[in-house]
């Protein structure tokens, strides 16, 4: 995953050089200013885990992390990311291929049906729980509000809400375990 030889269909666009970090690896590329981050990830870097749904910021399928915060990759130009750090769904699993707590919970709770919205949900929920593991104590209505920025057209929300809660519990338990030695 280094600088790309991919040529866009409109290959006479002037390009700009950008360098950024994607999933922990440095990436350098020359891109048209009108290339969206979502298309850069999928077409230039082959990271097709980031899905593209509505392409105007409504569905959330293309959610990635930019500089540690969840963001819509379809509402960001690749050239805006010069110097930034991007994390995609491909980076959620551990080095040994083990699932992250959020991925594990989506599998356990049937949080996916067709799976198209799943990468976006995984990235949104991962960012949400990084910020606030107390979501474990939230009501179902609150959880629905917190993840309302992602749509599931299979309408499989019951499983998604349950998965969010289970992942929150797992993450909070892990944090509490990690905190025990420092308390003594």
């Amino acid at each position: 995953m280094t600088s790309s030889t991919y040529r866009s269909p409109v290959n006479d666009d002037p390009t700009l050089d950008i360098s950024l970090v994607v999933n922990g690896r440095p990436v350098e590329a020359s891109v048209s200013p009108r290339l969206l981050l979502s298309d850069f990830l999928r077409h230039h870097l082959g990271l097709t885990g980031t899905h593209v749904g509505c392409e105007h910021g409504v569905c959330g399928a293309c959610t990635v992390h930019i500089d540690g915060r969840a963001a819509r990759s379809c509402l960001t130009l690749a050239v805006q990311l010069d110097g930034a750090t991007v994390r995609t769904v491909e980076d959620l699993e551990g080095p040994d291929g083990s699932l992250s707590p959020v991925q594990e919970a989506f599998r356990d709770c049937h949080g996916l049906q067709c799976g198209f919205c799943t990468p976006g949900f995984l990235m949104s929920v991962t960012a949400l729980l990084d910020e606030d593991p107390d979501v474990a104590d939230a009501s179902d209505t609150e959880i629905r509000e917190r993840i309302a920025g992602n749509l599931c057209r299979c309408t499989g929300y019951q499983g998604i809400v349950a998965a969010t809660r289970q992942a929150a519990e797992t993450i909070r338990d892990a944090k509490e375990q990690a905190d025990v030695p420092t308390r003594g």
Partner: protein
Amino acid sequence: MKPSRFEYVLPRSIEEAVAARVEYADTVVLSGGQSLVPTLNFRLSNPEAVIDLRLVPGLADVRVDGDWIHVGGRTRQRDLELDDAVHAANPLIRETLHHVAHPVIRNRGTVGGSIAHADPSAELPCLLLCLDGEVVAHGPGGARTIDAQDLFEFILSTTLEPDEILTEVRFPVLPERTGWCFTEFARRHGDFALAGVAATLTLAEDGTIAWGQLAACGVTTTPVRLVAVEDALLDGAADPSRIREIAQLAADVVTVPDDESCSSAYRRDLLVGLVERALRTSLQRATERATARTSREVTS
């Protein structure tokens, strides 16, 4: 490629940014991009040049200074929402931001971007108008200040000149003995609301209502002050039992015709209900604040 071809301009200073505004015939300013990029993706907007503000220094600074909260135009909505000093100075700001789209959008969307975009359904223009805030615009002749009441002209249209850039948004600190409320109704949390109301209500020393400031979004071609309601609050120390009656006076500002979301009649009723709720919540909070202040004075 979704957007049509454009020149990408990356200025390092506000002067360079304004110069690009002048140089190209048709420019748009990229701040957070959460409203702009969808219009580019759909080619509703096909500008000659996109001016990205991300390297212009100082545009994301936030400070509370005396009676004013100064917010750099490129400040992320999420950063303003999480700013505790801002929240202490004016809690209506955080309450309003909780209704702006979803957290994932607020992570990128900016305060100045939303206000300059001037969507009549958007919450931040409504907040600015309610609070009698102001904005600073930089143009070829330097900077000027524009009062919120002189800023919003029509749907997606402001009195900013085509060669100007909005660089700062100023919200007043909430006065003493003042309550606040932002409330709206949307089909799904985070969607554009069918209607929304921002309110502040200030009590006199004797605990009666001195004055109120209210603005609504989603009901006409711009955010709009609810002048009839404000006048009624001034009139005769506004007995709280009259709040329902006073709220009825908001209905006439609605000009949105029947649309796919709801009828015009429904929107009028909805607005009245939201105004009533906003007034009651503001009154309760104003009373709590005034009481807390009095008891602090007694104990100290």
